[in-house]
């Protein structure tokens, strides 16, 4: 039995610079995208899309380090700036101009907070990047899995939405899937946090009546959707945990928008 074997490549900046080459974009993977088992699959899905459409990209690989976002928001400005300046030295050393990332927290920090410390780049969130590819017709979601008749609801990430006013790009990406998009009650600027931002991901929540992710998942399940689409590694974990908390993991799945596109393309 023969099977067509696709081969995907992941060039690093070091290799590219060594051969005197420059990428079109730097893909900033982020800590979750590098280490979190679930989000690694998102990283891989996005890399496969980049390969498939023939974008010349590179990653920093072992040279990448945490942007410092969780440290800064927890109050540790020293640590944040140490991380930021070290990262800026690496990025500027490679003469990086354009960065794409699948993490809204990395996106916000690189875009809004690095310039003041000497790091000026064009920073794009992967939802915007995918929207661009779809608009240019470079991504067609007809070759893989069909989404016709499936109900998908999109959970807005605070650092993508309210923080940077990106509401439509991820929805446009989902619209390309030809699925049935349903909205929760609290969306866009009124979206409810997944409960993980501002360093919450790294500690137990304060005592309360409920966990934030459970409240949000109840709202998502209320739409009758079988798929909760997210565009952030923290939201991914929080929504998945919330679905498990409600014992709905058999019928409801949480996917990143790039995974859905990759599935739609048969990648």
């Amino acid at each position, binding site marked *: 039995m023969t099977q067509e074997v696709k081969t995907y490549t992941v060039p690093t900046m070091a290799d590219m610079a060594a051969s005197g080459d420059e990428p079109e974009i730097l893909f900033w993977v982020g800590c979750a995208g*590098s280490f979190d088992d679930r989000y690694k699959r998102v990283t891989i899905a996005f*890399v496969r899309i980049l390969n498939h459409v023939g974008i010349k990209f590179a990653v920093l*690989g072992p040279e990448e380090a945490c942007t410092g976002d969780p440290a800064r928001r927890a109050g540790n400005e020293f*640590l944040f700036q140490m991380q930021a300046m070290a990262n800026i030295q690496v990025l500027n050393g490679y003469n990086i101009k354009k960065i794409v990332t699948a993490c809204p927290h990395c996106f916000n920090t690189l875009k809004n907070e690095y310039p003041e410390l000497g790091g000026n780049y064009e920073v794009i969130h992967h939802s915007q990047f995918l929207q661009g590819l779809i608009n240019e017709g470079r991504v067609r979601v007809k070759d893989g899995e069909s989404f016709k008749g499936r109900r998908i609801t999109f959970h807005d990430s605070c650092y993508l939405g309210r*923080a940077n006013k990106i509401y439509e790009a991820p929805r446009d990406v989902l619209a390309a899937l030809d699925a049935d998009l349903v909205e929760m009650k609290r969306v866009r600027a009124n979206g409810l946090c997944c409960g993980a931002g501002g360093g919450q991901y790294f500690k137990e929540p*304060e005592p*309360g009546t409920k966990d934030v992710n459970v*409240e949000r998942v109840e709202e998502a399940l209320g739409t009758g959707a079988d798929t909760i689409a997210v565009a952030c590694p923290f939201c991914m974990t929080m929504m998945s945990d919330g679905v498990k908390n409600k014992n709905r993991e058999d019928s409801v799945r949480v996917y990143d928008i790039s995974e859905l596109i990759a599935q739609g393309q048969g990648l």
Partner: protein
Amino acid sequence: MEIFQQILFVVALVATAWYITKRVRLIARAINLGRPENRFDHADERLKTMLLVAFGQKKMFANPLVGVMHFVIYAGFIIINIEILEIILDGILGTHRLFAPYITPVYPILIDVFEVLAFGVLVVCVVFLCRRFIARVSRLQAERHRELRGWPVSDATIILVAEIVLMVAFLTWNASDSVLRDRGVGHYGELQGVVPDFLISQYLKPLFAGFSDTALVAYERTAWWLHILGILAFAVYVTYSKHLHIALGFPNVYFSDLQPKGEMQNMPEITKEVQLALGLPVTTGADGSQVNDNGEQPAEVGRFGAKDVQDLKWINLMNAYSCTECGRCTAACPASITGKKLSPRKIMMDTRDRMEDIQRGWQTHGNDYQDDKSLLGDYITAEELNACTTCQACVNACPININPLDIILQLRRYRVMEESQAPASWNAMFSNIENNMAPWKFSPSDRFNWADQVNEVK
């Protein structure tokens, strides 16, 4: 008799002006406790924001029905000020409806508009009381929000009842005045043929039909005095009340943050330290200014982050005085929604309470008085601060662009950098970032391992 009323009126007016000036100076002094922060840039963008958000009340219309009701009170408040001008001049000069003979064709139209607005304000205030006490809108209930217990609820009720009383006084004053005019009593009769019946108060005239002339004059005078003294008292009261937002809402929006909501303000004093630690050329001074070629920039580094109101920026303090405690921030806060102690409204109210305590200290012990309290610890607790997800829902929800998150983050900085008081798991996260370049304890050399799986079948 007439001259006695004029003297009394001028005394009331001057006393009000003197007292308000005193209050404004005290509040300005408290706001100036804050650290400097340049909010005088981008004048056109700021003006545009103020026109849309403050004058246009753009964010109030997020809920159109409430938006319309608030707009009625707001328009009533602004436009009725024109009518107050006539009342004040009448009071000083001992005249009656001074403007009427000079702008005869316009006068009744003006008063009709005022009456419609006054009636609108009256209705809306009743609806607002019903929302608080009958419909029991969640964000306004003291049982659910501990920051509202006591004074804040009384304050809100006093304001609504006072507005109702003022509007009733205004409408019945016009009605009794019209009856006196019809009967041709004294100077009231002089307005026969000059001033007609007004749109709303004409329907109140039958109420006064049974009054004797003397009783009617007494009512007219009482209503007139109640209305104007009520307004003067209200102006003083506002400086103690959450209703200061009617004045500070406008500058507060003008000076609002123009950065993207997700951007946290940089600390230049730390940039310098980090640049020295990393052996990089120092580019910023402690005050954020560019340093000269020698790299010298002498500047005093104060606290890292904020412990008390003096460590916050003046705009944070103006925010606190502008807050009208509507609780839209708290209603949108994920921590608050899920029963945690954090309430963004409480953060703003605590900040104002702290400043009012400082003011009381000044007044009783002199202007150099300092107590041993601080905003962090005595008013706002670590548990509240730690619960914040920095999601910016509170910042988005505020109708006048108040930023509770900015205060929360500055207090967090103080706890972590000055007191080393982060939760244990945050300290673990910090040390992981420091040692492993990721918030988790993975080897940095494993960071690229995911690439091995990129060709594996899903």
